[in-house]
């Protein structure tokens, strides 16, 4: 089980309380599709993904980004049981969606960059270190049920 110090929990909750799941989620997902274009293959039915502008403006991307970040919020409420929290989602991503878990790591890194752009100097090295740990364990939990 992953151990979280009081400081780490504070750094996570503090930042989470100040961000919009919809905005950050939409931005992170859009960047994933733009920076790593092969990820678009998982979103065939999303309509127009033909350019960065199209992707950023795409309502399905926004909606799905929000869904992803909201789910992330669940992780934050359950830091002591991430594997349990993501058990069903892990099965879904493996069995139905066929997503290589490496993509979770990519999205995690992108989320970090989105946070850095939003919070600027407040996104301190300590903050980054804690959040890199968080996205890492979330990615790990999401990969846990793969077979």
């Amino acid at each position, binding site marked *: 089980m992953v151990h979280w110090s009081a400081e780490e929990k504070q750094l996570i909750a503090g930042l989470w309380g100040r961000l919009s799941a919809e905005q950050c989620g939409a931005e992170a997902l859009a960047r994933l599709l733009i920076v790593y274009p092969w990820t678009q293959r998982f979103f065939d039915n999303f309509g127009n993904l033909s350019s960065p502008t199209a992707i*950023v403006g795409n309502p399905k991307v926004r909606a799905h980004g929000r869904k992803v970040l909201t789910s992330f919020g669940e992780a934050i409420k359950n830091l002591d049981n991430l594997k349990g929290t993501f058990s069903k989602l892990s099965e879904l991503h493996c069995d139905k969606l066929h997503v290589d878990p490496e993509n979770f790591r990519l999205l995690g890194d992108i989320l970090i*960059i*989105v946070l850095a752009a939003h919070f600027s100097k407040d996104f301190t090295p300590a903050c980054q270190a804690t959040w890199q740990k968080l996205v890492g364990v979330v990615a790990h939990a999401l990969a846990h049920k793969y077979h």
Partner: protein
Amino acid sequence: MLTAEDKKLIQQIWGKLSGAEEEIGAEALYRMFHAYPPTKTYFPHFDLSQGSDQIRGHGKKVVAALGNAIKNMDNLSQALSELSNLHAYNLLAVLSPVFALQFLSQCLQVVLATRLGKEYSPEVHSAVDKFMSAVAAVLAEKYR
């Protein structure tokens, strides 16, 4: 492959950061050591506290090398040739250069994003990410 547009974006962004190279390099390195503790194993002889002379000095070197690469984006292989040799033969055993450099790339991008905010747009993000991948690939060329 870096497109003409990518190269333009990178040069623009780099131009905006002129003068702050040492700080950016130092911060990127410090963030890397803090977020990815295993990277510290490559610098056992360094004082890794925030703002240390060695981190500032090395950060400055790293950013200068990147700046040189940016001036020579059409021939990265040649521009980074010396460094590729250096990392391959002279430095302590770097197990997986591409892997290790991913962490530096992530941390450098975080520093750029904190400084540029919205200006670190998806297009700029994409161009920089591609550029850092290309740099890592060139540095890894000489390993084996």
